[in-house]
């Protein structure tokens, strides 16, 4: 009985399955036939276009015939001439279509955003007592060679109205085999706003001052200037929020900016809430004295709260001059300076609230007599934002670019601090610091052009 049931089930399945197979085969035959018809149509279209192209090319127009390309009709959208297409095969036609192809038939880069990687490796050599005190330029990473910043950048147009930029960054924060990966920036810029305005929102390096907005690998020196490290921390003022810029329609260039941020930077602010936001502002102008001489001037301000709900204000001013002789592909001379002033409410040892106003800044000059070589020197002077005392440093450096995408830099930095108390961990001392700094940077893939 059981055997009979099995046989009946098998027979039933066979009867049901055969028509299904038959139907599928029939459907495939129909699809194949349809594809063949499509292929014939494509073939005919290609032949017609080729014939038309030949006719146009054979016409004797003295000017209007560019090599291989006809002049398009009046005001008609001009399509690029098809690159001699070969007839698609049945396999090509049958291949599943993606919603959009990142490569393949449409060619690399179509509908794909720009992708780039910037790698920045630095090394330091310094005295043993500085190493012990962890008082070098890259605190805690003295006498090491390490990846400071390896940055993956993805950027492009979202739609006709907006642009997005995402930067993911990895780098060594502390000695060891571990490398931290973090979101360095993720921004959306609304481009199509009226009255010369633009809004950038997300996580970004704020446009406070000149050097703060520059990424580590793009800095004109190996390290950030001491004053900015002292007042804003090693990472600089990187915040979450938005910036509104306006470029009014004036006879001269003027850019105004207002930013509103959480205020997470724990060196200068740190309250981290929009209820008491960090507010920034910047005005930037540019004077082109002649085609060869140009000066950029900027003033910035920032105001927020510390975690103790005490006010902290920063003001900065910057100037940059470049001399690029006519026909040169690089500037011969670049000179710049930036100053920062901080007023901060703090609680002193007795628990009383008091104000600390502190100052810092730097100036640098760079000469680039050859396209691949540049030499410069930077002078830093800075007070410390809360504790008493000050430091100064001088840093001559040499830069070599084997190509636009590869750069090596060597620098010597001498730093002197007026007190040793804050720089004497582990029995070391960071009052006098001599360092040899080395940097190797590369760019893979896309990288936006550098502004002035």
């Amino acid at each position, binding site marked *: 009985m059981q055997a009979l049931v099995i046989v009946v089930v098998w027979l039933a399945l066979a009867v049901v399955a055969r028509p299904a197979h038959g139907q599928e085969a029939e459907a495939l035959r129909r699809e194949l036939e349809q594809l063949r018809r499509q292929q014939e149509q494509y073939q005919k279209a290609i032949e017609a276009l080729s014939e038309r192209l030949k006719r146009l090319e054979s016409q004797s127009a003295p*000017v209007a015939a*560019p090599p291989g*390309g006809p002049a398009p009709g009046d005001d008609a959208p001009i399509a*690029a001439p098809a690159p001699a297409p070969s007839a698609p095969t049945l396999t090509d036609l049958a291949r599943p279509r993606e919603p959009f192809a990142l490569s393949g038939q449409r060619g*690399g880069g179509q509908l794909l955003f720009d992708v780039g990687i910037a790698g920045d490796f630095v090394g330091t050599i310094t005295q043993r007592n500085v190493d012990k005190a962890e008082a070098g330029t890259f605190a805690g990473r003295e006498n090491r060679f390490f990846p400071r910043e390896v940055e993956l950048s993805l950027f492009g147009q979202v739609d*006709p109205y907006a642009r997005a930029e995402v930067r993911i960054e990895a780098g060594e924060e502390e000695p060891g085999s571990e490398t931290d990966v973090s979101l360095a920036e993720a921004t959306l810029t609304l481009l199509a706003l009226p009255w010369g305005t633009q809004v950038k929102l997300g996580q970004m390096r704020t446009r406070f001052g000149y050097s703060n907005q520059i990424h580590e690998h793009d800095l004109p020196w190996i390290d950030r200037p001491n004053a900015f490290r002292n007042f804003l921390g090693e990472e600089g003022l990187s915040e979450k929020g938005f910036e509104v810029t306006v470029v009014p*329609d004036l006879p001269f260039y003027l850019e105004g900016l207002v930013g509103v941020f959480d205020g997470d930077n724990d060196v200068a602010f740190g309250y981290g809430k929009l209820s008491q936001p960090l507010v920034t502002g910047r005005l930037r102008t540019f004077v082109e004295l002649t085609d060869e001489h*140009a000066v950029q001037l900027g003033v910035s301000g920032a105001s927020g709260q510390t975690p103790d709900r005490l006010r902290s204000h920063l003001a900065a001013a910057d100037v940059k001059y470049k001399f690029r002789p006519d026909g040169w592909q690089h500037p011969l001379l670049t000179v710049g300076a930036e100053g920062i002033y901080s007023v901060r409410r703090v609680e002193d040892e007795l628990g009383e609230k008091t104000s600390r106003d502190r100052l810092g800044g730097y100036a640098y000059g760079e000469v680039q007599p050859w*396209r691949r070589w540049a030499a410069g020197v930077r002078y830093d002077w800075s007070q410390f934002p809360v504790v008493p005392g000050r430091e100064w440093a001088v840093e001559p450096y040499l830069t070599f670019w084997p190509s636009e995408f590869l750069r090596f830099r060597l620098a010597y930095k001498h730093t002197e601090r007026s007190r040793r108390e804050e720089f004497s961990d582990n029995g070391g001392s960071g009052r006098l610091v001599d360092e040899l700094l080395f940097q190797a940077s590369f760019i893979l893939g896309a990288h936006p052009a550098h502004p002035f």
Partner: protein
Amino acid sequence: MTPIVRLSLGLLAAGIGLAGYAEGADKVRVVATIPDLKSLTEAVGGDLVEVESLTRGTQNIHEAEVRPSMMLKLRRADLLVENGADLDAWVEVAVQSANNAGIVRGGRGRVEISRGIPLLDVPSTRVDRSMGDVHPLGNPHFSLDPGLAPVITQNILGALVRVAPQHRADFERNRAAFLARVDEQMARWTKLMEPVKGAKVVVFHPVYVYLLTRFGLVQAGALEDRPGIPPSPQHLASVVRQMRAEGIKAILVEPWNDVKLANRVAEEAGARAYVMASAVGAVKGADNYLAAIDYNVTTLAKALRSP
């Protein structure tokens, strides 16, 4: 000078400046990324447009520095005319800071001239930076090929009509008149180049491939073995050997490139280096589109005819 006099003079100067600024307000304000396109836009736009270029002819256009003054020009522009094919990709950075919604990518006030241009030197293999600063879309230096003037001016015309449709008839008339002048010159240039057809030249950077192809000349080699990267001594030695073996008489060099090096190589090879008008305004006498082509054609014809 009293403070009141100083203040009055200052206000007067500002007033004059603003008056001059307002004067051009009724014209279509166009910004071109390179001087060649400025000249061609002026030819089509005539008195109805006010055109500024972001770069000068004496500059290496590949590596133009993005200056805030560019942003100022772009801020006011009704139309941005860009070359495209990656030659002037830097303009994107300036556009992003210019805060002008009309000229952002995809905007009606923006035109990429490489549309419809059949590019030469399109790489047929995988491209990466080991090949130097290679242009993956093809050679972008097409603007000074007179045979492409119809396509380029057509693209410019289309864009001008988009932003100022009321002037369509004027733009069309200007374009037709300009192309007639190009035709006239073309006949002369073709005659001038006829005797040197098939001659070989060496270039420093492949800027002239469209012009050479147009007049049947051959680019036999380049001093740069990889675009944008200074040539190695070994490569230069091989170029010298090639020039001697093939009897090549001319090296074409851009004013912004290493002219001294080109002269040295030419001397070694028993040839001569010629500074060409790599763009409008690159050399004296190449102040507009037709003059720049005329300069190049005359220079080439003389160079290749000389014994």
